């Protein structure tokens, strides 16, 4: 009882914020699409040929000659490529200082650019995401909310421990009427909590894992990626110019025909390596589409150097994402996710009510005892 009370109380306020902001985030793709009209995209047949990625990168450089091209993102749902740029690599690590240009991946036409004011959809989703994941304070906020998530998991587990003895005298799902609102809400709290138990645990645990994204990737870069680079040392770039990214992507496709390249980090990137294009590929099944495989292509010779295997903790992180977001089973799954989230909000709110009403009762008893 003590464990359930204090773990719950410590996390309830933040958890209410997380659950409420999570609600619109479940539908973030739909919200962005709905609020941001992309009708400027040309109507072309589905098999229209793609533009040369090198031309898009060159166009981005022409528009911002003072900036470095940091990464490209290839959308697999919409025909678009986003080129990310920044004044320096330090600036690129600061989300507020990154710039992007969005291209139609078939015509090469510019669809949008950062700095021209954030679209209302993107701004809303961004705001919700900060409140949900880092409280606007970056890594510190992420780790703090990770701890809140752990408290939530502890609250759920201790709640289950209390459920057994409590229900020994009651039928499953009984919500007693006519014995006051406290009893009714207590029964409702128990019912809603126990039926959504495993969903809440899965979303809670995967939420905690998601909050560890930054340190886990840093760990991988410092260990595995560094070891691969050390093994390749002694072959400094012989050609100063960068080789073709389009050719690098083609080399990756040749080596892994069943995978799709989703992004590429340019050499020198803090999220990449000094002399390679680090190209991230995804599979085609629902699960392998979540399990990314990075490929290192020498950014000077254009040679494919290494297909990397991610360690278990990054695999766990990758599997945690869909299980937290609920974005892997179509719109009906998202709706169910939202309803289960509303149930969780009710459990949190009723828990808070139960604690407050008990305190009020106790205060009353004390006042009456004082009078007596």
């Amino acid at each position, binding site marked *: 009882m003590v464990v359930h009370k204090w773990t719950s109380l410590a996390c309830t306020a933040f958890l209410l914020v997380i659950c409420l902001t999570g609600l619109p985030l479940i539908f973030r793709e739909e919200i962005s699409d709905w609020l941001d009209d992309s009708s400027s995209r040309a109507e072309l047949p589905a098999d229209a040929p793609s533009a040369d990625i090198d031309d898009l990168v060159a166009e981005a450089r022409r528009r911002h000659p003072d900036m470095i091209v940091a990464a490209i993102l290839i959308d697999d749902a919409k025909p678009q490529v986003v080129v990310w740029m920044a004044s320096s690599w330090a600036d690129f690590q600061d989300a507020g200082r990154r710039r992007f240009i969005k291209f139609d991946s078939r015509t090469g036409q510019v669809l949008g650019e950062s700095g021209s004011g954030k679209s209302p959809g993107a701004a809303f989703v961004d705001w919700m995401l900060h409140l949900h994941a880092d409280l606007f304070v970056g890594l510190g906020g992420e780790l703090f909310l990770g701890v809140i998530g752990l408290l939530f998991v502890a609250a759920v587990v201790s709640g289950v421990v209390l459920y057994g003895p409590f229900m*020994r005298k009651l039928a499953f*799902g009984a919500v007693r*009427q*006519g014995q006051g609102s406290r009893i009714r809400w207590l029964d409702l709290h128990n019912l809603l909590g126990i*039926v959504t138990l*495993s969903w809440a645990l899965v979303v809670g645990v995967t939420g905690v894992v998601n909050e560890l994204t930054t340190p886990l990737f840093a760990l991988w870069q410092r260990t595995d990626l560094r070891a691969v680079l050390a093994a390749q040392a002694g072959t400094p770039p012989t050609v100063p110019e960068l080789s073709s990214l389009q050719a690098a992507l083609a080399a990756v496709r040749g080596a892994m025909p069943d995978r799709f390249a989703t992004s590429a980090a340019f050499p020198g990137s803090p999220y990449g390596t000094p002399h390679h294009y680090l190209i991230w590929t995804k599979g085609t099944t629902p699960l392998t589409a979540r399990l990314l495989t990075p490929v290192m292509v020498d950014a000077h010779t254009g040679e494919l150097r290494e297909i990397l295997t991610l360690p278990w903790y990054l695999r766990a992180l990758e599997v945690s994402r869909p299980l937290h977001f609920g974005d892997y*089973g*179509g719109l009906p*799954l998202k709706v169910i996710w939202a309803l289960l989230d509303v149930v969780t909000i009710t459990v949190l709110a009723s828990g808070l009510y139960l604690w407050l009403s008990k305190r009020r009762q106790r205060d009353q008893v004390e006042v009456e005892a004082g009078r007596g």
Partner: protein
Amino acid sequence: MTTRNSAVWRWPIMLALLTVFGLLSALLGEGGVWWPLSWLALASPLVAIGACLAAGIDRTARH
């Protein structure tokens, strides 16, 4: 009325198993029937809530 331990946990365990099945079937199954199966399984806790509340209202109405 005292309910035995096994009866207390029968429904919670059933719903927990259905939830886990629903969570995994859309992720591991490759399209086809796995998505609707996942929707049905994950909706089961919601259906259980609805059924329990409806039964409660019914009981109150009869009193």
